[in-house]
């Protein structure tokens, strides 16, 4: 049997993976350029970069761990992956918003930025879990696992995003 880890790593390295890398690369390039143009903050750019990439790696590891407990390879794993990427974009977009808003204040307080982002991330995490819970008892097993992956993936993604925001913007 194919090693599930190699299968999921292929999502990022094969044909489908190369497409995802292009998407990720363009989105990152646009987001980082815009953020740096608006804020001139290297810390923010680093936080965005680390958050986006590490959360992607964490998602892969999570799917791998789930596959280890006997779920097998899920051909539709791209569905939660794309949804979680969009959520990550919204979440990091929020961080950029808070940073720009804080820059407009007289006294720039990075702690305030990350506190606001924590609030946003908490909301995203709780909402993702709630929506997953809504779907769990209603659908058949393969889709059920996709919904669970969506919920957990969303929580892990926003948590990773916030961790790097805190680490690189406040604790620098």
């Amino acid at each position, binding site marked *: *049997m*194919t090693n599930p880890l*190699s299968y999921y790593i*292929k999502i990022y390295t*094969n*044909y*489908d993976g190369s*497409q*995802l890398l*292009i*998407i990720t690369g*363009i*989105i990152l390039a*646009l*987001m980082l350029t*815009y953020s740096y143009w608006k804020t001139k903050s290297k810390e923010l750019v680093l936080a965005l970069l680390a958050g986006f990439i590490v959360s992607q790696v964490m998602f892969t590891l999570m799917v791998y761990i789930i596959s280890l407990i006997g779920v097998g*390879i899920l*051909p*539709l794993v*791209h*569905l*939660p*992956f*794309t*949804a979680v*990427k*969009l*959520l990550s*974009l*919204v979440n990091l*977009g*929020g961080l*950029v*918003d808070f940073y*720009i*808003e804080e820059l407009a204040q007289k006294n720039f307080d990075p702690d305030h930025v990350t506190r606001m982002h924590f609030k*946003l991330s908490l*909301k*995203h995490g*709780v*909402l*993702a879990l*709630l*929506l997953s*819970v*809504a*779907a769990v008892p*209603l*659908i*058949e097993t393969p*889709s059920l696992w*996709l*919904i669970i992956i*969506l919920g957990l993936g*969303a929580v892990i993604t926003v948590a990773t995003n916030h961790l790097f925001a805190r680490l690189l913007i406040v604790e620098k």
Partner: protein
Amino acid sequence: MSKKFNFKGFKLGKQNSDKASKSKKKKVTKNDVRVFLGKALRYVSLMILTVFILSVAYIALPKTETIIPDYRFDFTQEELQENRYILELQVKAQDEDQLDKKVEETKAIIQKRLYKAGADEVAITGYHFDNPTPDTDYYLYRYIQVYVKSNLTDSELNELIGVRNYLRLYLPKDDVDFENEENPYAEYFIENYNPTNVTLHDFRNVLIKRLPDSSGTETYFAIFKPKTFGDFKAFAEEHGGENIGFAVDESIYQLELPSTFKPDYTSTSSSSTKAEFTIGITQDARVAEITDIMFNSGVITLEYNVYESEALGAVTSPIKSTLFSFTLIVAMLLFGLYNYFIAKESFQTVFRNLFEIAFALAAVFSFLKFWYVPVNTTVLLFESLAVLLISHDFLHKSEGRLTRNLFIFVGAFLIYIFGFGYISLIGRDIAIMLIALSISEQISEYYITNMKSYLLND
């Protein structure tokens, strides 16, 4: 007309009625007419909107045929064919150390072909027989299983999965007489040629282009673009203007290599675009598309054959309309409860947001149902949940809203453009749903504000 605007006059005593009537007549101005028309238009637009919203809700919700039995609206479920192939790969014994790598490469190329051709789901795994073909001194045999869910025809699947498509150029053997009338098929036997080193590896890509042929008919041509440092350069210099054998797997035919290769390749300029190797392939667009996929998805270095193939039948999503709607309604209720009790938003905001989201999703579902667009309800449910998840930020009015929403749109659009299979589908559908959400926000704001003022007699 004046009487209609004279309603305040009824409050006056009889003694003043003439005076009042005169004064009221004076007050019927253009402005009054404008106000009246404005109110009338508002009522009409509210009526139309109410009818529209109720119709959309009727079409979008399941089991509404129990209310009006003559009209039934259900999702047209996308029907996909499931197929399973088992391929027997032959690995040369001398390549045993690269066995895993070559098998993985083969799987990746077949997967790439299928996704490019529009397959919805592809899973390729190793396969173990109880009685496989035993390994020999020359070949090792390995098996892979290809599971595919798609709308592709059997012949397309057979070509994409079962054909290796390995290109090699050959030279005719000197001792074979291809002009012999007693053996007119001599040019179609691969034994009558000597293989050369030039293979598909020596071309950086194969461009499929529609061009007029010698008779003026539009035909698809395959333009082989050679690599700068590949073997084809030397081959073309040596054999330009000669007949060569053009073989894909075991089928071969003869063609004349243009002599124009020589001047182009001996030129010191780096441009070699005019020295491309071109052959006519077909007039059928779909065949040309499949040929494009076959030539440009990578080179399979292993020989293989289809050991077993099986059509598993048609499948639809197991999530039916009722279950789909019920799940979504529960999710929206939870979303509303979270915003009201935990995010501490006002009842008005929560209601407005839910109305906007419900209206947008219902409008999209109604469109899909009304025009019988085939959908996969599992994917649609997933997309709806994703839109619900990001809708709060999308609708939240703040300074950075335009930028944030632009990012989401750009993200969804990029996923649509660069994605494949379901990923591209999700990008497109989420972008459409977000556009519907933006329109719904404007309509809902107008509807709720005006309906509220109408109901409160404001």
